[in-house]
């Protein structure tokens, strides 16, 4: 019953009053013409109230004339009448349709590609590789097969150990994990030497294959052959044999950094004044809105993207960018010796950590301050033990 009512509502119907001597005749003509009537009720001696579909009402006119009845619409009900109001406002309906289509269209396109987790592999490179396969900003979401894309990136970039591809709304999120690049491995059946990766003093040397040329306590230079793969025979007439040298060579190495101790420190502070630069953009096209010239000499800036985002998933390709400029003020601070040394030490320690290889173990660290040309310097020396063995093809560099 509910379904029938819903159907009637969707198709639209009218409540009419039929007035006349022989309403029954009107009803009979209507039923014979396949006009559905329902909820019929006699309200007065000569009039009957009933419901009728819109289409039926149009056909019922002649039936009324034939039966000499008069029809009067009491009420119009249903969806078509509700919608009929908007029929006249064509622009409104058109806008509604355009809006719906636009939303659908805009949200079925990749508008931004975010790549995270890459340090050494350039994001531009990945984007370029993807564009070769038809994945770029503005590409349809349906064209993207995340699995295929992940595989493709993995195959093309040896440095990547994992690639995750996710489509979130209109954004394509690519998270990569970079592995340690596998070192050049010389095949086992190919003869090679073991050479020093770094300068140092040998702590221990274990030749698993090949002949050790240096012993503990020897000072070696970078590139020096430590374990040779060429085995000379005792008897020169037998000639020599070449092997694949393998070995572990632990050596003591030193790293040193020299830095000037600063006398003054420049503190930069925001004065509190700020100035905004507005621009609107669509994709990469950026148009600056007229907002005057940057009044500050010394400033730092901050970019705020105000792109409309639907439900933090669908990022649209246009928006307003606000660049906030904060005026800065420089203040020179004269440091006393202790403060200056502290700052210099922190800077030096940070710097040396980048120089020392990751697998080296720091044994000792030495700090030294010394004066030179009326300036004070700090020198930091770290002593490490590390494996300096590296394989190299015989005759290679």
């Amino acid at each position, binding site marked *: 019953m509910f379904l029938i009512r819903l159907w009637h509502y969707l198709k639209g119907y009218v409540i009419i009053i039929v007035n006349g001597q022989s*309403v*029954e005749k009107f*009803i*009979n003509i209507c*039923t*014979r013409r*396949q006009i*559905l*009537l*329902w*909820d*019929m*009720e*006699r309200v007065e001696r000569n009039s*009957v109230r*009933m419901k009728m579909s819109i289409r039926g009402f149009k056909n019922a006119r002649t039936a009324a004339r034939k039966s000499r009845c008069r029809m009067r619409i009491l009420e119009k009900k249903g969806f078509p009448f509700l919608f009929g109001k908007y029929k006249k406002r064509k622009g409104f309906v058109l806008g509604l349709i355009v809006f719906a289509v636009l939303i659908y269209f805009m949200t079925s396109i990749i508008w931004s590609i975010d790549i995270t987790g890459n340090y050494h592999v350039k994001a531009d490179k990945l984007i370029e590789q993807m564009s070769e396969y038809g994945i770029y900003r503005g590409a349809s979401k349906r064209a993207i097969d995340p699995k295929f894309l992940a595989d493709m990136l993995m195959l093309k970039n040896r440095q990547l150990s994992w690639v995750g591809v996710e489509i979130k709304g209109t954004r394509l999120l690519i998270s990569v994990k970079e592995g340690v690049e596998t070192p050049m491995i010389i095949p086992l059946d190919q003869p090679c030497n073991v050479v020093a990766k770094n300068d140092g003093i040998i702590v221990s040397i274990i030749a698993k294959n090949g002949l050790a040329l240096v012993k503990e306590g020897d000072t070696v230079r970078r590139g020096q052959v430590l374990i040779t793969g060429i085995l000379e025979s005792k008897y020169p007439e037998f000639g020599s044999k070449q092997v694949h040298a393998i070995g572990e060579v632990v050596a003591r190495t030193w790293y040193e950094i020299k830095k000037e101790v600063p006398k003054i420190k420049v503190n930069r502070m925001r004065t509190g004044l700020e100035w905004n630069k507005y621009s609107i953009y669509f994709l990469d096209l950026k148009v600056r809105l007229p907002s005057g010239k940057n009044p500050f000499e010394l400033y730092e800036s901050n970019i705020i993207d105000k792109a409309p985002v639907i439900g933090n998933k669908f990022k649209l390709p246009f928006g307003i960018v606000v660049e906030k400029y904060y005026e800065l003020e420089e203040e020179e601070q004269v440091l006393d010796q202790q403060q200056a040394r502290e700052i210099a030490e922190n800077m030096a320690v940070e710097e040396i950590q980048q120089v020392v290889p990751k697998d080296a173990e720091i044994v000792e660290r030495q700090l030294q301050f010394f004066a030179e040309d009326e300036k004070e310097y700090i020198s930091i020396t770290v002593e490490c033990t590390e494996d300096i063995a590296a394989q190299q093809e015989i005759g290679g560099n």
Partner: protein
Amino acid sequence: MRKRRHSKSNKRKKESTTVKEKVAKILEIPEEVVSDRPKITTVGRKEVFVENYRGIIEFTNEIVRINSNYGVITITGKNMKIREITNEDIVIIGDIDNIDYVV
């Protein structure tokens, strides 16, 4: 108009099995599908379904007269309404007192 209706009522059939009905019986088709005999179904005292009718003669809140091939069906009661009326059937609701055949 009246004349025509009169002539129609004269043509009323006697209730006897026709050839069509016999065939239906052999083929085990439900009789009401092929026959032109009216079928009246009542549910409680509130609803009356009439199928195979020819037209309505009178419709008020107290009396509904329906023409059929085998006579006029007169339904009396109170507050009677027609819930639905199509070419094949008619659904009457209300407090029904009486269902009569008037030949």
